[in-house]
């Protein structure tokens, strides 16, 4: 198919964009894998100790033993706490009141204040949780009471992702984003560009069936997406350590459907766009922004107000990302994906018919 070859040439001639198209997924993956982490690493902590007795010293030592906290400063004035937060030097301050050891020994629970910088809510909560459990356990050790209410401690199973790695959640999101970007956005821009430059007219004069012409335009981006998909999967498995628990063939089949949805979307956009700029803006605003915000890549859909949750059902990426999470991370089979597959197939059919129709009208 000479036309397909022509399209490939068009793309590769623009080296910079091609490079970016191949490298972008890698970078995004690395970013999402490493940067978007909600793990709480070693945090800078301060202490204000009004007692400075054996008990407080022991507790402070235990706090640092876990590796979660780095004792950076011993404050001699509680008024400095707010200042330290403002300067960004401390994440939390542990405050012991006077006569701590004596109160503890007498069995009257002394107070420990944990003052955390609340500007990062989840971080603050996690820090407080860690500190509370370390301090409570250590205090019990001091009192000689190590027996706990062990009978009621439940066995906790963290399903699918026991080490709570952030990458498990984000990799499917990156896949959705990249495939949309390449297929939908790039296809729409390339077709719009031909229209803008007037070369579309030249192509239409040829004896080639116009619809096949359009299809030829989508083929290179289809191939590029497959390459990207392979790259992402390889990197996820070998670099980020995200397993593919489910069947690889299910994953690929499912992804193919999503690719078709996006290609159709790209065609549709380009058929209504008059120029590259418009195609770009539309695919940027109408596609990327809702995808990033609503599809569950980063922000849990569960937290959103009802209107947005409803709206997210229209975003194809939402179904794709959900399905990929099911296959890749949860290891479910194709049967469990019936809802996502049906929705995506439906969308694909709808969009393909719509875009073919739109093109037929425009071309004749």
């Amino acid at each position, binding site marked *: 198919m000479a036309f397909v070859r022509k399209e490939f040439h068009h793309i590769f001639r623009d080296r910079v*964009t091609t490079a970016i198209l191949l490298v972008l997924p890698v970078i995004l993956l690395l970013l999402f894998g490493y940067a978007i982490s909600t793990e709480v690493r070693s945090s800078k902590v301060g202490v204000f100790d009004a007692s400075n007795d054996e008990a407080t010293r022991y507790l402070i030592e235990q706090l640092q033993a876990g590796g979660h906290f780095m004792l950076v400063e011993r404050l001699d004035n509680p008024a400095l706490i707010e200042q330290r937060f403002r300067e960004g030097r401390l994440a939390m301050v542990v405050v012991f009141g006077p006569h701590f050891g004596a109160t503890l020994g007498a069995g009257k*629970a002394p107070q420990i204040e944990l003052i955390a910088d609340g500007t990062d809510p989840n971080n603050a909560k996690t820090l*407080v949780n860690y500190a509370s459990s370390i301090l*409570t356990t250590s205090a019990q050790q001091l009192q000689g009471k190590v027996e706990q209410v*062990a009978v009621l401690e439940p066995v906790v199973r963290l399903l699918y992702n026991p080490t709570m790695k952030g990458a498990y*959640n984000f990799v499917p999101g990156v896949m959705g984003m990249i495939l949309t970007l390449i297929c939908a956005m790039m296809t729409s821009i390339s077709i719009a560009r031909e229209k803008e430059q007037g070369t579309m007219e030249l192509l239409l004069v040829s004896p080639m069936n116009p619809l096949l012409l359009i299809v030829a335009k989508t083929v290179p981006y289809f191939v590029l997406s497959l390459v990207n998909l392979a790259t992402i999967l390889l990197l996820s498995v070998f670099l980020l350590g995200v397993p593919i628990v489910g069947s690889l063939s299910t994953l690929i089949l499912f992804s193919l459907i999503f690719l078709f949805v996006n290609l159709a979307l790209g065609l549709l956009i380009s058929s209504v766009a008059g120029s590259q700029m418009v195609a*770009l803006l539309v695919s940027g605003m109408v596609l990327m922004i809702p995808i990033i915000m609503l599809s569950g890549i*980063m*922000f849990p859909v569960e*937290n959103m107000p009802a209107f947005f949750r409803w709206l997210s059902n229209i975003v194809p990426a939402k179904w794709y990302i959900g399905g990929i999470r099911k296959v890749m991370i949860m290891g479910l089979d194709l049967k469990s994906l019936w809802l996502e597959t049906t929705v995506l197939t439906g969308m694909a059919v709808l969009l393909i018919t719509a875009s073919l129709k739109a093109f037929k009208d425009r071309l004749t």
Partner: protein
Amino acid sequence: MLSFLLEKEFKQLLRNKFMPRLIVIMPFAVVALFPMVANFDVKDVDLTVVDNDHSPYARRLIEKVRSSGFFKLQTTAPTYDLALQTVEDLEADVVLVIPKGFERDLTMGRQTGLMVAANSVNGMRGGLSSSYLMGVVADFAAEIAEERLGAGIKQPVEIVPRYQFNPRLSYTYTMVPAILMMVLAMLTGFLPALNIVSEREKGTIEQMNVTPVSRFSLILSKLIPYWVIGFVVLTICFFAAWLFYGMVSTGGYLAIYCFAALFGLAFSGFGLVVSNYASSVQQGMFIMFFFVIVFIFTSGLYTPVSSMPPWLQTASHLSPLRYMVEALRAIFLKGSSLADLGSHLGALAAFAMVFNGWAILSYRKSRG
């Protein structure tokens, strides 16, 4: 000379039907909608309960979990496997299994075999929801112990948490300043670059190039309008933040404007550098998009820099957005002053000089 150029730029801008509307509407839309979406809170966790004991204690525990406010009791299932099915269908996030003989074991002081399983694909959500549930169970245990043994097993210390600056730990509070910065970055970064590259494609830049206007004035004339727009947009954002969330900057607005001025300069400079090297609009957009994405995610906008691996934390020093996000949050939420943030100011100033200098030097009037 510069004044004429500026006049031309402003006129072109205002004549464009799209731009002025974008400038006014986008801040409102983003500030209003984004915090509603950008919420990492863990609450309303869907729970499936498997109760194989059906004893009063079991019912009490279930009721306690339900009334804790964190969980929504979605459904009950007869076995663990069926309960797991609800997790696979994404109907539930957490499963609580109360085994047969729960009450008997509890009263006899034996291990009860209570089990909690949480969907941890989202690690933070899984971790926090399972620890909430454990907290409720621990409270239940203390209650039972107190009833039965009289002297309860008391906590040795009383932990009092306090959250400075954000007592209710609201995510909106954290997100709004960050969003302001994002809007500012998008506009000051993309628009000048887009402007120059599209002029180049249209060919009107050639006309400018043949005039005796200096590179410096040309670049400046492109920069200043968007700089001004940045201020306008920022002000609209402040208004929107107050209007929708009642949020006012604790540290006043003057410090923010100072930072915005520097940041706008730095980031537009960056956009211009990109435009000098991009040969088409599409290419320019992609390069910008690429860098903006990298900057945004390493800036601590969504997730804290302290959570990143050490090598990435060091690399994030190269992102102008990082300084801006930290500074903006610090001023808005904590009331930090310019003095507190001296190093951030310095970093942004350095970026501004480097990028703008590079933009001016790399602008070539005679291009092939």
